[in-house]
Structures are given as C-alpha cells and as structure tokens.
C-alpha cells in the first residue's frame, strides 16, 4: 500500500529524473579526483604512501568546498519546481503533511549526495589502478569512511533543503553554503576539536578528513571520531527537518 510519505518521496524521485542533477552528482567528484591526480602526474611526483596519498589528495579539498556547494546546488534544484508557476500553491493545498514534504526533499538531496560519494569512491579506485598502477585495493577503512560520508551529507542536505524552501532564488542558498563551508574550513583549521561539529558543513568536511591526519585529525579511523560524526550529523539533521517543517506549516499560498 502506498503511504503519503512514500508517495511524496516517489514524486520527488520522479521530478529528479527529469532534472540535470546527474551533471553535479557525476561530474563534480570525477573532476575533483582527476584534477588532483593530474597535478600529481605533471609534477612528476609519486604517491608517497600509495592509496593513502591518493585518498588524501582527492577527498580533503572535496569535503571542504565542492561537496557542500554541490549539495547546496542540488537542494536548490530539488525545490526549484515548487518556486515556479503555481506549484507552491499546489503544495500548500495538497493533503501531504509538511513533515513528509520536508523529509522527502531532504532525503532526495541526501540520496544524490550518497551517489556522489559512490562516484568518488569508484573514481579514486579507477584512478589508483589505471593511472598510478597502485598495488592491491583501496584499504577497507576508506570504505567505512565512504559509508560515514553518506551519513555526514544528511545535515548539509537538511539545512540546504530548508534554505532552498524558504528562499525563492536558486543562487542565494548556494551563497550561504559557501559562507558555511568557508567558516567550517577556518574553524577546522583552527583545530578547535569537537565544538566545530555544531556546524552542518563542518560535519561533512570532518567526515572527509577522517584518517587523513589533516586539520587536527589523528590520522587513524577511531570509533570516537566516527561516532562524533554520526551523532552530530543525526542531531543536526533532526533539528533542520523540525525547523523546516515548522516554517512550512506557517506558510500560506502566494497570491
């Protein structure tokens, strides 16, 4: 039986099929990994620590800027149909509860974010094997980090979706994502510890830095570090969804 929530989620997935979301989801991780690898190749350097060096060069910058901005663009894209024509009024008059609408949008953005992480993982593996001829396979800890990254995109998906719901402009939420990502990068560089995880963009960036030894990371994948990302991510996502739902319930039709 189709529940109102599954219907809302299905509708969002149908809308996505007709969008250009794939261009961000596929191109962004591929371009970041290839650009990092290209600079390594032309510099004539070797990957000093094999897979670890390749992962570090591919993923750390990706988590600081391209990933949060990519999620910001995808969230704007997800809410774009509602801000055009009479779709907002149709949304306001539909029987689907606000919570389901907000949840469906957030999950769809997070789903695209999850696919981005898989594309990133596959591109890193292919680059390591085909371009650098690295022995063996990408160590298992990076597969665990990829799973953590899938969780870590949730808070940014939630906040960016909420912003894109509240603001009609496509570009403005992306500007907020840039400010958020920039602030998170500075705070992480200052090595303030777990406090920075109150910022959604910092949670995503921190997840990409796990086991890299950068930005104050210990260089090891620890249960504490992973748990901090998961707990902070879950709490911030719940908060973003709750606030967005409350906001949507108080909105009216556009006349």
């Amino acid at each position: 039986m189709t529940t109102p929530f599954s219907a809302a989620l299905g509708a969002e997935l149908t809308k996505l099929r007709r969008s250009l979301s794939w261009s961000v989801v596929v191109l962004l991780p591929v371009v970041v990994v290839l650009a990092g690898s290209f600079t390594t190749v032309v510099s004539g350097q070797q990957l000093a620590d094999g897979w670890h060096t390749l992962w570090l060069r591919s993923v750390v910058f990706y988590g600081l800027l391209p990933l949060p901005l990519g999620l910001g663009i995808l969230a704007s894209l997800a809410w774009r149909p509602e801000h055009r024509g009479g779709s907002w009024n149709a949304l306001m008059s539909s029987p689907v509860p606000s919570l389901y609408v907000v949840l469906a949008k957030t999950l769809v953005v997070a789903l695209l974010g999850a696919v981005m992480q898989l594309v990133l993982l596959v591109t890193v593996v292919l680059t390591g094997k085909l371009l650098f001829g690295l022995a063996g396979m990408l160590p298992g800890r990076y597969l665990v980090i990829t799973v953590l990254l899938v969780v870590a995109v949730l808070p940014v998906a939630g906040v960016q979706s909420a912003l894109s719901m509240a603001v009609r402009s496509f570009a403005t939420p992306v500007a907020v994502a840039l400010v958020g990502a920039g602030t998170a990068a500075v705070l992480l560089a200052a090595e303030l510890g777990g406090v920075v995880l109150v910022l959604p963009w910092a949670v995503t960036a921190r997840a990409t830095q796990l086991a890299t030894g950068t930005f104050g990371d210990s260089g090891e994948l620890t249960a504490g570090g992973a748990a901090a990302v998961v707990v902070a991510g879950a709490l911030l996502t719940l908060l973003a969804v709750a606030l967005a739902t409350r906001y949507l319930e108080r909105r009216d039709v556009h006349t």
Partner: protein
Amino acid sequence: MSGRRVGTGGVVRNEVAKLRHLRVGLVAGLMVLGMVALTLLSTLTSAVFADPARRSWDVPLAGLSLAVPLVCPLLLALVASRMVDVEHQGGGWLLNATSGTTPGVLCRAKLVTGAGVVVVVTAVTHLSVWALGRLAGIDAPVPVGLWLGFAAAGLAVNLVVLALHVVLSATVDNQLVALGTGLLGTVVAVFGSGFPAWSAHLTPWGYYSLVAAAGYEGQDLVRTSPSCFSVLVLTVTAAALFGLVTSRFDRQETR
C-alpha cells in the same frame, strides 16, 4: 505612455537599480571579505611571515593569488545568476523587448553593471590587503608595478568569467547549469596552479593561475610575473565572442 525606446544609459541605470533588490552588494561584500580573510589567514600562518627579517609583500601577494581563484569563480557565477534569473522568473525578457530593449542589449547592460561591481570589489580588496599588510608590520617597499599588473590581469580574468556566466545564465533557464559550471570552474582554478601553462590556457578559470603574483614551490616563496599577453588575448577573444553571441540573442524570438 510615451512609447520611446530606452537608451543604453537608461538600460544600465535600470540594471543598477535592480542590483539593490537582488542583494548583489551583499555578494560583493562577501567576495571582498572572503578574499581578504583568506589572504590574512595565509599570511599570518606563513613561516616566511613569522620571521620579521624575511617579511615582504610576496607573502600577502601569494595569499591573494590563492584567494582570488578560490572565491571569485563561484561568486561571479552567483552574481550573474542573480542578475539574469530575475528576467527568467519575471518574464523580463519579453517586458524589456516590448520597450525596445532586446535580450542582447539587456545582457550587455548586465555585463557593464556587473563589471562595475567587479571593479569596485577588486579595488577594495587590493587596497584592504595593502592596508592590512602595513598594519601587520610589512615595511618593505611596495612592488607597485607587479601589484598593478596582478590586479589588472586578475580583473580582466574576472570580467571574462562574468561575461561567460551572463551568457550561460541567459541561455539556460535552469540555473543549475550556471552555478554547476561556476563550481567546476572553482575546482579548475584552484588546481590550475599545479597544471602546466599550456593546459591553464584551455579554460577561462585556468587563467587565474597565470595571473598569480607570487606562490609557494614546496616551502619556498617565489615571485611570479602575471602573463599579461595571454590575459590580453583571452580578453579580446572573449569580448568578440560576447559581442557575437549577444547580437545573436537580438535576432532570436523573445521568450
């Protein structure tokens, strides 16, 4: 109603008036703040700057050479998107066409207006870095020629990128394309300093690495000369293409 055609000056004045409502001033402020903050951060954390005997203008110039490609590509895409998307959403193309302002003329007016913003941003950013450098204790003589060349070449590249985004935002209604391109441009611009010179010439964003005034080679700070000739060729080519494309807009049926 007079039915008189609006002159070019009038179209530009209209665009300036729109800037206030589009909060472009806020985005411009963000550009200045982002570039100055990143320059300050990289300067104060530089090992070269920590030694008072080696303190020179090359340190903030290297910081600014990195901050410009990190901040400008996406925010220029954002400025262009904000300025053009309003015409898509409000039926502005048709409204302007009925008063004699064709889409091509409108795009050229938007570029002139946006260029004014970029000129102010460039001037304020460079003057701020100079003032903060003085405050931070850099007493060495200012390399005026190098700095002016860097500022002028950087401004030219920014204007080319802005022109590209005005055309892109006007051509494709879905602003995902414009902002996604801006994001990919940021990646190319950031990694561009590691690319060989020939490949930096392949995209407008690669030119950010060609205008750098200083940078780090490993731990060593080196002064570089902006490739003014390459930037001049880019600017002339881009101006010709922009004129060609926008004159084609004038001959197309208004949306």
